[in-house]
């Protein structure tokens, strides 16, 4: 038997080379895929090496002289991760981006968004529940690109002193009037030509209607608020009756030839 503390290699020739993991950039900038054998997982580059936010796995990879650490991003716990694995075309959340995140909850997905935008980016994380808000604040203590805002997303004027103009609004607020909430925040804080990424849970809007009809109705509401939906995808198999809608706010008028 192996002695205590011995490396858990597979033994045989070349022992000491344990579970080689290769991390490759995802098509979406700032997102990565960790490949080891048959299993590929979604990861983000940890802004705070050595620290997990919600007991997620960390993967350390040699990069020349230094080590780079990544955190595993679970699509069953994050609708944004589910959308990425579902093949969303673009999320606009990328290194250096400023993001207004509505419905930040305890900050698990926010922490990955913080990894993606990196030290040059910013995440304004709005959450109304005080219970989750405490976890959000604690997470933000270690991540200086996350600005926690414990306030009601339905009243953006209450936090207008804390927020600058942003490139992207991400929303997961699970409110029947979610689209209006996003629109109100966009009118205040989203740049012309900025983007929105909204996770819609059909049963939160209307628990009796067909999900497809609910999504269509929400997309129609967006169009009346200068929000141009560009992409819609289901979050199956990770979430049931959820859709992710990505679009552009006040797109530049097309120049007529």
């Amino acid at each position, binding site marked *: 038997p192996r002695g205590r503390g011995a490396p858990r290699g597979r033994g045989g020739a070349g022992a000491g080379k344990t579970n080689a993991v290769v991390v490759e950039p995802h098509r979406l900038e700032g997102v990565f895929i960790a490949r080891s054998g048959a299993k590929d997982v979604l990861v983000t580059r940890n802004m705070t090496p050595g620290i997990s936010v919600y007991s997620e796995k960390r993967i350390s990879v040699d990069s020349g002289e230094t080590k780079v650490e990544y955190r595993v991003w679970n699509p069953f716990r994050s609708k944004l991760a589910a959308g990425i694995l579902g093949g969303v075309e673009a999320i606009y959340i990328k290194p250096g981006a400023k993001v207004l995140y509505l419905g930040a909850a305890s900050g698990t997905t926010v922490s990955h968004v913080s990894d993606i935008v990196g030290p040059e980016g910013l995440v304004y994380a709005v959450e109304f529940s005080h219970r989750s808000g405490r976890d959000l604040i604690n997470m933000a203590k270690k991540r200086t690109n996350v600005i926690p805002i414990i306030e009601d997303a339905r009243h953006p004027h209450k936090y207008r002193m804390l927020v600058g*103009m942003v490139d992207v609004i991400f929303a997961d607020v699970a409110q029947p009037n979610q689209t209006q909430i996003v629109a109100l925040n966009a009118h205040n804080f989203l740049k012309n030509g900025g983007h929105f990424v909204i996770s819609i849970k059909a049963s939160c809007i209307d628990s009796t209607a067909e999900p497809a009809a609910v999504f269509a109705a929400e997309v129609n509401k967006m169009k009346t608020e200068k929000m141009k939906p560009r992409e819609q995808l289901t979050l199956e198999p990770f979430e049931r009756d959820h859709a992710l809608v990505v679009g552009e706010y006040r797109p530049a008028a097309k120049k007529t030839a």
Partner: protein
Amino acid sequence: QMASLYLLYESAVGYSLFATDETAGIALDSPSIQEAAGDLAKFGKVVKFKAFAPFKNLQDALENINAVSEGLLPDLLKTFLETNLPKAKAGKKSGLQLGVADHRLGTAITEAIGFPTTHVDPVPELLRGVRLHFPKMQSQVKGEAISKSQLGLGHSYSRAKVKFNVHRVDNMII
């Protein structure tokens, strides 16, 4: 040239006052504001920086945001406006207005200092432009300092929210 529409912009670093001097033209033509707002060179011609009152420290900023987010007028803001807005002639319609983001704060300002306020078109569009270009429209604070102040103030504002709203009564012994 006399400005007729002033703009109040509240941020994590302090209060700022801006003025527009082509009000007549732009007020009627909102799409042109939207287009100009994206371009600092154009926007800066329409909206000019007038004055700035910084918060002294984090505690000062916290007291101010707590009042402003509830539509109340803090002393620092009252003094700032009294000092920097033109004096309206008593009993005479001056045509001067102060554009504000929140109508409740507007009402509080009018009641306290008698200056007329407005929060309707074109004010929201103009304030979007100010929010976008603020770091470059004045020389007092740089963009990085603004983000730092947002971070510090976001933490203290939010900490206070979860601390004082947990269905718990702290009985003060006086």
